[in-house]
């Protein structure tokens, strides 16, 4: 009953004219961001966040806008997978397998339609899941003391390191590097200034927005430039009419439902993102349904399953994000950074109880956003495809200049642009040598939490390190972290090495 009241309250808050308009703008921008090469959801949300602050919106409105961008980019990413064979996001890598084949056979319209419908069903289902699982799980966090909070962050680091790339050691290296970045600035407890190189502006620490934009946007421009010089280009497929017959819909319904369920539960696992979900559901669907060996040759279920799964996972990953404060992907890490900067700290408190208005408004806005995206996609796909035709020579400077504005607006400082450039170079090099980028961001955003809880726990235990294995909650968290570190090896033994390679490819950019 309380649930019903909460969600009705949420809808009342979300359904103001301003918030609906923001959700609409967010969905459009998000789809655009998903479609455009060189700018993904992480970059989109990271750039838009400081810019949103200049609009003077309240917290709920800001979150509605940015969450819509996040959702919209999931939709947009699949459009390019199908029409260009280029996944707009890591999460739609699998969609290229059958989606692009369908497009080549002149069935792009059906692929786009089933992807939109599947995404809608999955997205809506996962929000229902979030409503059911969120509040009770959030209750658990009220029993967390400092040692447990420390272990939760360790678990998040373990999962992101193990799943965000091919080489687990590089994942760990990345997350450790992120924590090192987080220690730069003034130590909150003792006032000691650490790792600032005597630079006054670094005393407040390094803003995650600057790091995110540098690592993801700038490095992407550099990577695309390298491809351009190399002469690599893509071939367009056209979509005439976006439609799907009722028969095709019922044919795909099983794949959509299975994809949604898998996606949601994969999303629930802390540290796993939408791309992992897409891959797992495709693998499962292939095993169940591929009796005529049509998968990989343009089977509509090969589009329906991963597209549903990645949207369900996007919703599912909000559960660990909003309850434990564990982001499942780079984008949700940025969302967490934004929540923290609003003074909301999931994992440290029960946000469902402490800020019910904000959370339920956000949840209600997700229902609205999903519906909006479904309605928008059918008439607007053609327009988005036209946008794809914007030449890179105009798009790349545009992305850079808007990135500069975003970074500049954080502190009104030119130094930040220099720092962003530096991280752009780093991001480019890291991409080259396959050091995953998302863990760096996670380390930076959660590093402070890690250290504060580490020290608080040791103060409480008077320096006894065994406090981190005290109590069953800590033991469970520790065992989960260890298990997660060995998960990729187990997965690759269970399947052929071929699939695990693709799996690693898909999750490389989470």
């Amino acid at each position, binding site marked *: 009953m309380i649930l019903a009241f909460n969600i009705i309250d949420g809808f009342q808050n979300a359904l103001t004219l301003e918030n609906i308009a923001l959700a609409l703008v967010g969905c459009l921008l998000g789809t655009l961001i998903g479609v455009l090469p060189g700018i993904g959801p992480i970059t989109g949300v990271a750039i838009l966040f400081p810019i949103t602050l200049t*609009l*003077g919106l309240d917290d709920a409105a800001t979150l509605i806008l940015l969450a819509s961008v996040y959702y919209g980019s999931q939709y947009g990413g699949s459009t390019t997978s199908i029409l260009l064979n280029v996944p707009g996001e890591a999460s739609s890598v699998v969609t290229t397998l059958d989606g692009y084949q369908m497009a080549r056979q002149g069935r792009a319209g059906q692929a786009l339609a089933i992807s939109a419908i599947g995404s809608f069903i999955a997205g809506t289902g996962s929000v229902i899941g979030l409503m059911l699982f969120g509040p009770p799980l959030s209750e658990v966090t009220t029993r967390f003391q400092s040692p447990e909070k420390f272990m939760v962050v360790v678990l998040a680091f373990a999962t992101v390191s193990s799943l965000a790339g*091919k080489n687990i*050691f*590089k994942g760990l*290296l990345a997350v*450790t*590097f992120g*924590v*090192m970045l987080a*220690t*730069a600035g003034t*130590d909150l*407890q*003792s*006032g*000691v200034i*650490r*790792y600032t*190189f005597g630079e006054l502006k670094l005393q407040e620490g390094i803003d995650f927005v600057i790091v995110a934009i540098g690592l993801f946007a700038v490095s992407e*421009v*550099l990577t695309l*430039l*390298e491809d351009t*010089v190399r002469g690599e280009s893509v071939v367009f497929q056209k979509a005439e009419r976006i439609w799907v017959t009722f028969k095709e819909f019922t044919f795909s319904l099983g794949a959509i439902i299975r994809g949604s369920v898998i996606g949601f539960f994969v999303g629930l696992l802390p540290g796993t993102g939408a791309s992992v979900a897409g891959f797992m559901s495709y693998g499962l669907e292939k095993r169940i349904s591929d009796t005529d060996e049509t998968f990989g040759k343009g089977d509509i279920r090969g589009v329906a399953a991963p597209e549903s799964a990645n949207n369900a996972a996007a919703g599912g990953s909000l559960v660990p994000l909003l309850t434990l404060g564990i982001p499942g992907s780079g984008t949700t890490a940025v969302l967490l950074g934004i929540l923290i900067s609003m003074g909301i700290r999931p994992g440290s408190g029960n946000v469902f109880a402490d800020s019910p208005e904000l959370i339920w408004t956000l949840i209600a806005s997700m229902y609205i956003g999903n519906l909006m995206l479904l309605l928008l996609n059918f008439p607007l796909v053609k327009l988005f495809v036209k946008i794809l035709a914007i*030449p*890179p*020579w*105009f798009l*790349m*400077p545009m992305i*850079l*200049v*808007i990135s500069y*504005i975003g970074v*500049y607006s954080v502190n*009104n400082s*030119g*130094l*930040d*642009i*220099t720092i*962003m*450039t*530096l991280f*752009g*170079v*780093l991001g480019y*090099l890291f991409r*080259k*040598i*396959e050091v995953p980028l998302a863990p760096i961001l996670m380390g930076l955003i959660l590093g402070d939490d*890690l*250290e504060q809880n*580490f*020290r608080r726990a*040791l*103060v409480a235990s*008077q*320096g006894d390190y065994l406090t981190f294995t005290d109590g069953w909650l800590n033991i469970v968290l520790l065992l989960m972290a260890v298990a997660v570190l060995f998960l990729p090896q187990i997965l690759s033994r269970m399947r052929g090495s071929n699939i695990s390679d693709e799996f690693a490819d898909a999750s490389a950019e989470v």
Partner: protein
Amino acid sequence: MTATPHNTPAVSADGHSAAAPTRAGGWSDRALGLVCLGIAVWYTFEARTFDGTAFGSGPVGPKTLPTGIGILFGALALYLIVRPDPSPRWPTASAGWQIGLVVLSSYIYGRVMEPIGFIAASAAMTIVIGLLFRAPPKALFPLSLAFPIVLAYVFNNWLELQLPDGWWGGF
């Protein structure tokens, strides 16, 4: 920044001749490992200098976690040196200097944006990047000016953000 040394990593080891993929050797990872090891040593020793007896620190002070993190980072760096992955395909010399040019102009942008203003800096930047991405100059030049002017107008008037005016004020 902790990471500056990354600017000159493994390219020299096996890059520049990347017409053919060079998937052997693993020098890229070794170079990364070496750089990270250096950073780890510096980071850990730096951590030892933080005053642990400062106000508010209990049994563990501001040096404890950085020390641990630094050692972990060093161990991971060592692992990369011992067991590197195959090297990636590094850009050709011509792609390399074009990438360098983007980085340089981005750096210069950060330095000059405040004195010369958002519009002038952005227009120059757009031209440089546009040309690198093979823009037709006739279309590029007018767009490179129009685009920052529109952005400056939108941000300064519709959104509460003041971009530096510099040479052209008043938008």
